[in-house]
Structures are given as C-alpha cells and as structure tokens.
C-alpha cells in the first residue's frame, strides 16, 4: 500500500496508471478523486488542516482494515493539506483486486473512513466570510454499513 500526505498537487491520471502497473494481474482497478467544489461561486480558497503523525497512522490503520476485509492486490491513498482553490484535486484513493466487487467496496470503505476518521479539517474562505466545514451526520452514519 502507498499513503502520501502532501501539500503539492498531483496528477490523478498518472497516479492511476502507475498504480495499475504495480497492481498488474489484479484485473479490476477502482479510483476515487475528490475535487474542491465551489457550490455557489463564492469560494476563494479551501484550507485543509491535518494532524501530522496521527494522519499517517490513522490512514495506515484504515488501509490495513480494508486489506483484511477484501482481497486486495494494492491500495493507494493520496491526501493533500494546505491551501486549495476550486477545481483542485483534494485527494484520491485507488484499489486493485481480482474481483470488481472487492475493488469497489474497498474504495468506498476507504472513502467513508477517510471522511470521518482521518484527522483532516476543511475551512472554506468565501467572499462572505470563512467557516469550518461541518461534519455531516450522513458521513458518520455511512460507517455503520461496514
């Protein structure tokens, strides 16, 4: 597995291709890319804060759990922190498996846990003010299905 926490942008396509190469023979590769949205045209920037040290540990634990639950040939997590603007890629997850269902489920599991159990916090700077993005009940509830 590969986990990268970084401020730099990344090329999701190049990452997907490199990941698929390393997981050769898997048959099924699923990726998720998260992009900064500007819902009402007023977003100036998004600041992502994280907890260095805990972030890496929490994600490693989440990926290990996914590897226990599904038959994975590989898993990739890239998550940025720092200042982003609309259209920037925030993060990506990729999973590879012999079985498409395993690849899909593991990717959804990783996303659900990254949302609510990896120590990142998003702050939106908008033309009308700044505010921390609030956790959504449905994101917490999404963990119950696993």
């Amino acid at each position, binding site marked *: 597995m590969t986990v990268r926490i970084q401020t730099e942008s990344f090329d999701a396509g190049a990452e997907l291709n490199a990941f698929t190469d390393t997981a050769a023979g898997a048959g099924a590769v699923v990726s998720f890319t*998260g992009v900064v949205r500007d819902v009402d045209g007023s977003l100036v920037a998004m600041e992502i*804060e*994280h*907890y260095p*040290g*805990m972030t890496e*540990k*929490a994600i490693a634990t989440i990926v290990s759990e996914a590897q226990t639950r599904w038959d994975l040939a590989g898993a990739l997590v890239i*998550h940025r922190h720092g200042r982003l603007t609309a259209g920037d890629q*925030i*993060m990506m997850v990729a999973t590879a498996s012999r079985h498409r269902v395993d690849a899909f489920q593991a990717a959804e599991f990783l*996303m659900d846990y*990254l*949302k*609510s*159990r*990896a*120590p*990142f*916090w*998003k*702050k939106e700077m908008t033309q009308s003010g700044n505010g*921390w*993005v*609030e*956790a959504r009940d449905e994101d*917490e509830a999404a963990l119950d299905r696993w």
Partner: protein
Amino acid sequence: MIDVLYFAWVRERIGVPREQVATNAATVAELIEELKAREERYALAFSDLRALRVAVDQELTDFDASLVGVREVAFFPPMTGG
C-alpha cells in the same frame, strides 16, 4: 507534562496549536475540567463536548480515557477529510 494539541476551531478559540500542560489529571475529562477552570477561552472551547473529539497519543478515544503514561492529547471537532 503532557503535550496538548488543538486543531481547527478548537485551535482558533484557544489561540495556540499546542502547549505543554503540567497536570495530575487521571483522565481526559479531568484534564478538560482543569483547562476550563484556567481561562475563559478554554471554557468556551470545551463548552460543548458533544462537538469535540479527542485523540490520546494519536489514537481516537473517549473522554474517560486514562492519561497514565500519555505523552500527547489532542482536541478537535469531528473530522472532515476526503
């Protein structure tokens, strides 16, 4: 001495990202009570524990977690990664 870390709006309310705290508190809950008694900014930050999460030595845990042998405690709102 325990390193106490604050993130997101908890950090903003308390005004520092981390500090060293001399404490004899046995649990996280006791540490919170000590901090709240110190200054208004702590009382404000810790006024609604349902809005807070805590990690002890970088593991998510509960407010009744023990502080025995602990190096680092972090307080923050629910996480919003992904």
